C-alpha cells in the first residue's frame, strides 16, 4: 500500500503538471481538491483517465470521483480493491 501511495503521488505530480509540488508536500490524508494542490475540474477528469489507463478502473459516473479522489489514502484504498491491472 505504501508503494501505491508513493506511485500515486508521482503520477499526480507528473500527469497534472504540478511543477511546484514535491512528493514530500503531499500527506496521505491531505485533501486532493480544495487544498493546497490547486486542482480543478479538468484535473479530476485527468485522474479518471489515469484510473482507467494505469489501473483498469472505469468510472461510469464522473461524480464518483469526488469520493474516490478525497485524498491519496482514499484513492489508494479504492485502487487496491478495484484494480484490474
Amino acid at each position, binding site marked *: 500500500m505504501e508503494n501505491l501511495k508513493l506511485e500515486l503521488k508521482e503520477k499526480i505530480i507528473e500527469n497534472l*503538471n504540478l511543477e511546484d509540488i514535491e512528493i514530500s508536500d503531499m500527506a496521505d490524508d491531505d485533501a486532493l481538491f480544495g487544498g493546497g494542490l490547486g486542482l480543478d475540474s479538468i484535473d479530476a477528469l*485527468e485522474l479518471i483517465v489515469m484510473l*482507467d489507463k494505469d489501473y483498469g478502473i472505469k468510472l461510469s459516473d464522473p461524480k464518483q470521483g469526488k469520493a474516490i479522489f478525497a485524498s491519496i489514502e482514499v484513492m489508494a484504498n479504492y485502487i487496491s480493491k478495484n484494480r484490474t491491472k
Partner: protein
Amino acid sequence: MDKKLYIQSYCKIKNNEVILDGKIIFKEDSRLLKDFLKSAFKNSEISYSKFFKMDNLCKLAFLATEYILKDFEHKNTNIAVVFSNNASSLDTDRSYQDSINDIDNYYPSPAVFVYTLPNISIGEISIRHQLKSENAFFVFDNYNADFHHCYENSLIQTEKSDGVLGGWVNVDSENYEAFVYLVSEYGIMEHTEKNLIILYKN
C-alpha cells in the same frame, strides 16, 4: 474627432530571447521550446502555478502579456485582446490526435483537449488579469498589420475598450514567435500600421 493612440509597450519572444520595449530582458539557449518557456517564466519571478498546465501557445501568449503588464498599473480591466497566428492550435491538436490514434490505447486527455483552440490563450490571459472586454483570435498566413491596426483602433475609437492587447502569437512544434503590444492613449510611438510593421520586423 478620433483619439490619438499609441503603442504603449511591446514584447517579442523568439529565437530564445525575450525583448521588452526593444531591450533583451531574458535570453537562454534552450534546445526545446518548453524548456525555454519554463526558464523565462522562472526568470520573470511570477507566481502562478497554472502556467505549468498550459500548452506552449498559451504559455507564450501568457509570458509576452505578463512582461508587458507586470509593472503596469492597469486597474482598468476594460482592455480588449486581439491576437492572430497562422498555426491556430495545431501544435496541441497534434498532441491530442496522438492520444486517440490507437484504438487499443485510447486515452484522450481532457487536459490536452481544453487547449485545442487558439483563443484559449486569450482566456488564460483574461483570467489572470481579469480582462472583461472584447476578444478575438484570427488565423492569417502572416502578421497582418493593416488588419490589426484597423481592428485595434476601432475598438478604442468606438469605446468598446480603453486599451487593446494586440499581436501575433504562433507556435508550431519548435517554431515559435510572439509579438504582443498594448495600444492605449498613452505612449510615445504612435499606433500606426507602419510602426506595427517596424516593431514586428525589427
